[in-house]
Structure formats: C-alpha cells, structure tokens
C-alpha cells in the first residue's frame, strides 16, 4: 500500500480549474518533485492535500485513510504538513518558540518535553545560532530553514516543501539539498515543488509535471525532462538526454 494516494483531485476557483483530475501515488521514503509553469496548480495541490483548501472532487488517502475534509491541524497530526512558499513564521516569537509550538501541538507534547527536541532540530538545520532571535530578525535562508524546522517539529512523516530552496545563494542551495538527502535517510517522505531544476534533478527520484491543473507527465527525472510535452509546456529547451 502506498503512503499517499491522490485520486482524481479537483479544485476549482470559479471557472478556473486549478486542479483537474490529478492522481498519483507516493511510496514511503520517496522524494518526488513536482514541476510545472506558474499557475499550473502546484501550490493549490499542496493546499488541498494539507487541508487548507477543500477539494471539489476526488480523494486524498494517507496511510490507508481518507484525509479529505479534515481541517489542517487534524491532517498535521495524522502526519502531513507543508512548508510555505511565502514564509509565514510566528513573527514576534523567537526561532526556538516557533519550533516549540510545532512540537507541542504537532506531537502533543508538554513544553518541557519539547525543549530538547527543539534544540536537536535546530542543530540539525543549522539554525541553533539564531534560536533566541525573533523570526523577523533572521535572514531569508534561515527563515526557510525555520519553515522546515517547524514541519519537522510536528513529527510529520510526509512533508510538502513549496519552493523551500527559492532565493538562496549557491552555497545555501547545496546545503539545502544536503538536508533533503539527510531527511530521506531519517525516513521522511518528501514532495518538493521547485523551479530550480538543478535542485530537482539533484534530489528527486521521480517527477510529476503539472500544467494548467492537469498532470502531463510522470516518471524518472531523466525521462521526464526529455519528454517533448514537458519541454514544450515548461522547460523550453532540452536540458538532459536519456
């Protein structure tokens, strides 16, 4: 049985079909990338899976149970959360408090029990040096890490990363990719939305291509990026060969 099964998912905004019968499966421990042009429905797909939007049709089955129509906090506790493209930390709280909140509520721990785990997560993501700073005061790269730290804090098995690597310099990007590989070793399953093909090709084991709300391709990264439809819809040029 797959960890996540997305079945014929539909989401409309008025007349716009943001998602139109999107289906795919995800195995435990996989890293899957989702690519596609702006407006393809990538972020909408994430928001439907985590429960921020309600789907207009189809189903999301996680660990064998439908999570459709559950509110985000319930879905989070069953094991799915996401990092947002536009970072939304709890601004006036410190970095550490941000992580503590995810631990306390995502895993239903006491504040005391969360402390050591928060330290561990911040250490792992290399943000321990700014733990007592307000999240408004830290750099974009660290705020993106903070988003990830919160996602890890909730204890979710499946993390949806929405452009978590955007806007980073080459060194930060390399670090980010290393963290993703490390997360896989720790048993996490990841879906990554990203425009940086270097990052996508570097960490993803499988790609799904969306365009205008429909899935137009799926497969190994090298296969997908040499597919003519994908090149036409998104890549624009051939960036790899089989």
């Amino acid at each position, binding site marked *: 049985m797959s960890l996540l099964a997305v079945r014929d998912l539909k989401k409309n905004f008025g007349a716009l079909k943001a998602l139109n019968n999107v289906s795919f499966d995800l195995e435990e421990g996989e890293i899957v990338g989702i690519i596609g042009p702006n407006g393809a429905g990538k972020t909408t797909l994430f928001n439907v899976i985590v429960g921020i939007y309600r789907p207009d049709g189809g189903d999301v089955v996680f660990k064998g149970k439908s999570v459709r129509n559950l509110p985000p906090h319930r879905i989070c506790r069953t094991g799915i959360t996401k990092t947002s493209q536009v970072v*939304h930390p709890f601004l006036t709280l410190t970095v550490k408090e941000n992580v503590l909140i995810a631990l306390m509520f*995502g895993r239903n721990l006491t504040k005391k029990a969360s402390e050591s785990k928060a330290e561990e997560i911040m250490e792992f993501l290399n943000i321990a040096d700014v733990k007592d700073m307000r999240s408004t005061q830290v750099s974009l790269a660290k705020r993106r890490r903070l988003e990830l730290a919160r996602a890890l804090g909730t204890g979710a098995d499946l993390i949806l990363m929405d452009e978590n690597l955007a806007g980073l310099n080459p060194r930060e990007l390399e670090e980010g990719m290393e963290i993703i590989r490390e997360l896989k070793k720790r048993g996490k399953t990841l879906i990554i939305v990203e425009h940086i093909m270097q990052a996508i090709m570097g960490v993803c084991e499988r790609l799904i291509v969306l365009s205008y709300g429909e899935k137009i391709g799926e497969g190994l990264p090298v296969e997908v990026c040499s597919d003519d439809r994908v090149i036409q819809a998104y890549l624009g040029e051939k960036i790899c060969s089989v």
Partner: protein
Amino acid sequence: MRKQIVWIAVFLALLLVPALKLEGYYYRTLSMIFLWIGLASAWNLTSGFTGYIDFGAVAYFGIGNYATALLMTKAGLPFFPAVVISGLLSGAIAIFIGKHTMKLRGAYFGIATLAFAEAVSQIVLEFDRTFHITLFEGSHGITLPIAHDETFFYYTFLVVVGLIVFVVFLTDRNKFGYALKAIKEAENSAELAGINTQRSKVSVYAVTGVMIGVLGGINAYWLTYISPLDVFSVTHTIHMIIMALFGGIGTVFGPVIGAVVLSIANETIGASLLYTYLLMLGVILLVVVIFVPSGFIGLLSFRRFRK
C-alpha cells in the same frame, strides 16, 4: 522574576490597605480601578493574545450585571452563587457567539461583536415592552438590595481581579498561550503546526466571557442600580481597548498599568473636565497606535533592550 515579586508585593500590600481605615471614597476609587484592571486584562486575554479585536466585550459585562441582578432580586439567590452562575452563563453565551464570529477575520470580527453587543442591549431594553412581561424592567433598570460596606467590595474585586491577572500571567507562558500567540501571528501556519485554531479561539473567548461576566455581576451588587444604557454602553468596551493598548496589548501587565493610569485620569480629569478627558483619550490612542504600538510596557522593554 524580580518583576513578579514586585507585583505580588503590590497585591499583598493592597490586601492590608483596609487596616488604614480610610474614608469610603478611597475604597470606591480603588474598587473602580480594580474593576477596570479586571476588564482590560480579561479583554486582553482574547484580543491581545489572539489579535481578534473584540468590539463587543461590554455584552458580557452587561449580561453579568443583569444575570446577577435578576438572580438576586427575582430568584432570591445570595450574592456569591448569583455571581458564579452569571459568570458561567456569560461564558456559555461567549461559546455560542465565539463559534460563529471567530471564523471571521480582522475588522469583520470587530463588526460582528459590536453588532452583538448592541443587539443584546436592545433586547434587554425592549424585551418587557415587546412581550408584555416584567423581567428586565427595560429602561427603568433594576435596583438591588443594599447590604455590604465598602471593604466587602474592595476585597471581592481585589481577589477576583488578582485571579484574572494571574490567569493571564499563566496563559502567557503555558502551552495554550503559545497556541493563541501563534494564531495572532499566522493562523494558517498555526493550523499547519497542529493547532486546533477554532477550538483555541472559542475557548479563550469563553474564558474572557466568564471573567467579564463575573466582574459585571460584582458591579451590579456594588452599584445597587443598573440600567441597560449604562451597563451595555459601548464606551466600556472602548475603555477596555484603550487601557490595553495604552499599557501594552498582548502583555500581562500592560493592561494593568493602562487601567490604573486611565482610571485615575478618568477620576480626576474626567469628573471635572469631561470633554478634555475624552479629547485626551483620543490623542493618547492616536499616539500609542502610531508611535508606540507595543504600549507603555513595550517602551520599557525597548529601553532595556538597547542598553
């Protein structure tokens, strides 16, 4: 930690004040200050911590007033049980109202709560005339039995308000408080972190409702006469908001300081020069919102931070 000791010392000192055998005026003034500390703190617990600015908080004050008045005069209950029931009733109504209004964000929540408070006021005012019965007594108001001396209310307010501030203090550092602060900062992120935002919001709103309801109940017995236009007056809500803003919204002791300063200003300037006082309130509100959005407390911690 030192700060907490100061506040505890202040509380203990206030417990001993009646030993000085002061004139009644001082007890009345101090009781009034306590009442406002309680109201501003209770308001702050919901609105300061979650960022849902309640413009209808006076509804629970009025409900508390009327519930206690009716329970004492019509049901013949003693004061303390009447106040407890009033608080619970006020909290129950807050759960119902909160469930529906706290799905609204920003100004819409403010408008909905303001409308609710006005509606309750009108119901109490017009109910008897509409249904041809005698319950709320309409604009005549209700007169309560006179039984106790000034120190009784002094202590009742002091203990209840001390408890309210203590609850706010605890909430500021416990898990539930973190849920509220997370909601204030980024509600979607709070959900994604596993917080049941709706339940947290409605819970804290209910607690605020109980607190304000209890204060209303004590107020009714203290004043011995209540009328709808007085106890449901929107200026009470505005006072709670300004006091909390002035002292520091979302902090524990900010609303306490705001309530003390503005109650004294109201008592001194407001009594003799009403319009000067109202003008002053307006100016204070503008200055605080534009220049020191974190209030008096924020000003203090900013200075400490710079050193």
